[in-house]
């Protein structure tokens, strides 16, 4: 069906959805969101929690099962003794979790951000797909306005397919594919040589080159009834799409998993995904790709 060239995987490997419930989190809301998505994807739900398996947790899960009207049957509850990203990822691997849902503050305090919180660090390494929810709701978030980051990367077609599939499952009618144009050095190069007209022409040529790249990226992706809107924006990569998502009241921003783990230096000299993690503009789906 969907045949985007570089990645040979199902577009939505969300057969098992994990949800991490920290002891201090918004238990009902995050479980409601996870339960709702597990129902939508007809997935197995794995609850990973750090506290004692309280009666409350069982009660909330029962309530979600009832609300899912039979769509959510297969669930498991796993307790984490040591809460860190490695143990959480081990559990995810053990249970073949395709999508891990986490509650994440939109912004973290400076120290917490630079030292790296559990949720952000998982995003920086992204060993499985992650859904970061800054405002989980008991009534479940509606993902109608979905934005996909369309950067030039072999992972991107898979991310686009996953976004399209996600949109179909959650009942969205369109996804917006946004490409950021950032050209370090261009201003100086054109200031030294070139008139305003030739510079404008040059920028237009670069933008049209990017449009061609996007078309090449999505030409094999069947949209299956989902309308794909293309947008090109100027600005620093990561920051530009963060601002765009906020301005356009996006419900979900879908991005590639990072090519390499992000470290402290990437937070000091912020770039790309780090701009998004620094200040989540909406819910963020980080699509983990395994390139064949």
């Amino acid at each position: 069906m969907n045949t985007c060239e570089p990645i040979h995987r199902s577009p939505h490997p969300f057969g098992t959805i994990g949800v991490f419930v920290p002891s201090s989190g918004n238990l009902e809301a995050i479980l409601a969101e996870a339960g709702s998505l597990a129902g939508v994807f007809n997935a197995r739900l794995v609850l990973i929690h750090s506290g004692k398996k309280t009666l409350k947790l069982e009660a909330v899960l029962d309530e979600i099962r009832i609300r899912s009207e039979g769509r959510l049957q297969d669930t498991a509850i796993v307790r984490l003794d040591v809460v860190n990203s490695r143990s959480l990822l081990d559990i995810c691997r053990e249970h073949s979790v395709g999508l891990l849902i986490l509650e994440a503050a939109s912004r973290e305090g400076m120290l917490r951000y630079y030292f790296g919180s559990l949720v952000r660090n998982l995003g920086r390494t992204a060993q499985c797909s992650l859904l970061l929810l800054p405002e989980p709701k008991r009534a479940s978030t509606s993902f109608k306005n979905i934005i996909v980051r369309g950067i030039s990367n072999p992972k991107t077609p898979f991310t686009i397919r996953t976004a399209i599939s996600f949109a179909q499952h959650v009942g969205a009618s369109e996804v917006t594919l946004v490409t950021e144009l950032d050209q370090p050095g261009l201003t100086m190069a054109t200031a030294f040589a070139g008139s305003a007209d030739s510079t404008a022409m040059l920028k237009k040529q670069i933008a049209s080159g990017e449009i061609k790249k996007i078309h090449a990226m999505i030409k094999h992706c069947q949209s299956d009834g989902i309308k794909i809107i293309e947008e090109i924006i100027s600005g620093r990569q990561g920051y530009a799409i963060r601002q765009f998502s906020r301005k356009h009241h996006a419900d979900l921003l879908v991005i590639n998993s990072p090519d390499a783990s992000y470290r402290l230096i990437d937070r000091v000299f912020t770039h790309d995904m780090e701009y998004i993690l620094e200040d989540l503009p909406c819910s963020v789906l980080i699509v983990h790709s395994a390139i064949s």
Partner: protein
Amino acid sequence: MAKLTPNDFAVFLLAISTILILARLGAEFGKKIGLPIVTAEIAVGVLLGPTLLGNIAPRLYEHLFPFASNPRVSIALDGLFSLAVILLLFVAGLELQLGQVLRQGKTAIYTGFGSMALPFASGFAVSWLAPHWFGIDTSNRFQFSMFLGTAMSISALPVIARILLDLRIFRTRVGMVIIASAILNDLIGWLLFSFILSMGGPEKGLTNIGHTIAYITAFSVFMLVIGRMFLNRILPWVQTNLSWPGGVLSFSLGFCLLCAAFTESIHVHAILGAFIAGIAIGDSVHLREKAREIMHQFVTNFFAPLFFVSIGLKVNFIKNFDPVIVAIVLIVAFAGKVIGASAGARLGGMSRRNAMAVGFGLNARGAVEILLGSLAFDAGLITQPIFVALVIMALVTSITSAPLMLHFLREEREPD
């Protein structure tokens, strides 16, 4: 207070207007015959300077540019040229996005270090082992060797960016790696050069050299970490609450000069302050593209012609042309940069052809090398023949970069 007389002031204004008008005419003519603007501006300086005008019409030359006979005008012009250098370094810094280096990952890191390490080592070794080739006083050998190493290892981001645009490979993997590596080259190169300028002679002693290193490191780290955080908070306020674009321009240029004054006051050259201020402001996501463009236009159309024409005014290019020094500088520059950068790119995982293209791409030294040479010449670090050789090397490497890159690139070019 010593003041310029009305006549001095008239001569000062006449010199500036002559430079600006002829530089513009030269640049326009250069554009028509495919000559880079910087080359055309230097050519105008050579025509107006001791090489040509000073030879055929010495009285007219002396009247227009009375460097020898009128110290007041000479000081005023020198102040203006120094300001031009500071602002050129500031706009060079504006384009350096440090995140770009991290984004390109290990390929850019390997290429960046490869394209610095080998040229630096070869430049240092040649001048250390054979200072007589350059006619350098052996007591100053270490400082000169450090300088030649740095001069060989630096790249010219604006020229490189222009070449990549013309070849339509700006947005390709090769283009991005070249840009990221050039950013790394420029950052490390200017830090190193600030250190060399601040070293002074051998009499300065190891303790003072240690202090200089500590000052440069502390200032750079402070500005690039804490300073950037401060700017990220204040720039949005400046751009929303002050007049646009006047507010942000005054703030940015004022900030640049403040940093330049600070580094000068701690006996590190003013260029470091201006350069680091440029990086800190230019790296901020809050600086609007339009503001960046206005700053570039202001500097490149007023201060850059003044500076590049002044190069030709300083030196007699014919009298100081030494074919041996020119040949040595060219050979070391080409070999060190191309081999070092290509080896780094190969280690970073690029194909042989692409790695060679990266090597020739980074070989373009252009305006940045001339800036570096001019500062070293003003500081008495190099002689006139070496300065002439560096200018020639900068022009030759810039002109040959595109065709040599093209030779190795066939498939990387962007579609028309």
